[in-house]
């Protein structure tokens, strides 16, 4: 199997594991952990595609030795960096919601939190 396909399969397994955790578990914090695993799976796919597929697109491009064309090789890594940023913001807000929920309901069980009202 090609190296690219191996990395993509690892990323798909991470994503599916995170999805299972996010959909099936009771504790809100573990649901957030599942979402983080999904983010990580997507990041691995981004970086793998940027490593193996994007350079090949330069072959068809005649002016591909210029700096701006060469920079496109790293586009996937930039996407991954933005995903990491968004994940950090998401986890900060998500855990703040968890703490607010715990303060008002004394629970972190998602089946007890079926309403967003106080």
């Amino acid at each position, binding site marked *: 199997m090609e190296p690219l396909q191996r990395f993509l399969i690892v990323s798909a397994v991470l994503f599916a594991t995170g999805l299972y955790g996010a959909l099936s578990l009771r504790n809100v914090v573990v649901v957030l952990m599942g979402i983080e695993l999904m983010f990580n799976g997507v990041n691995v796919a981004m970086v793998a595609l940027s490593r193996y597929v994007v350079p090949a697109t330069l072959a068809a491009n005649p002016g591909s030795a210029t700096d701006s064309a060469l920079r496109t090789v790293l586009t996937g890594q930039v996407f991954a*960096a933005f995903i990491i940023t968004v994940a950090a913001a998401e986890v900060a807000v998500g855990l703040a919601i968890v703490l607010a929920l715990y303060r008002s309901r004394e629970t972190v069980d998602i089946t007890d939190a079926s309403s967003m009202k106080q």
Partner: protein
Amino acid sequence: MGTLFQEIAFWVVTVVAVGAALLVVTVRDVFRAALFLVVAFLGVAGLFVLLNAEFLAVVQVLIYAGAISILIIFAIMLTQDVQRGNSPTALRPLALTASALLLAAFVYTIVQTDWRLLEETPLAAATAQGVTQVWQDTPRWLGGLLMREFLLPFEAAAVLLLAAVVGALVLVRER
């Protein structure tokens, strides 16, 4: 994949990352799940190193394994519901089926797609040299990309982080 060393490194890192990820969603103790999450993050950092993304590997260790996991562990400590554990809801069979079907669809697509890979489409000499330069000096080129093509998203990310900090403070404020 290149050398024997890379081959061994790939399998070690993959087993660590995937095994830890599976333990995160199966272990009953929430605190242990958080510790396995750190291991999974470190495994993904290893995958980044194998993919020529050393800068992202460092970012992964600092932000995910450092900051995010600490936040999660704090949240677990503050919501002292650890004893009730991490049991699945009634949706578990449905979630298992959905994840398995999605994984099967992913794997089928990945295996069936005719990827246009670098090995099959050789680059012109100048381009190949340029690409090698980019891989050898990734942070500098990443900086160039962020400050030129991705300047607007970069600034938007700063605003997003500010909004997230303010939002988190508003949510946990004592009334």
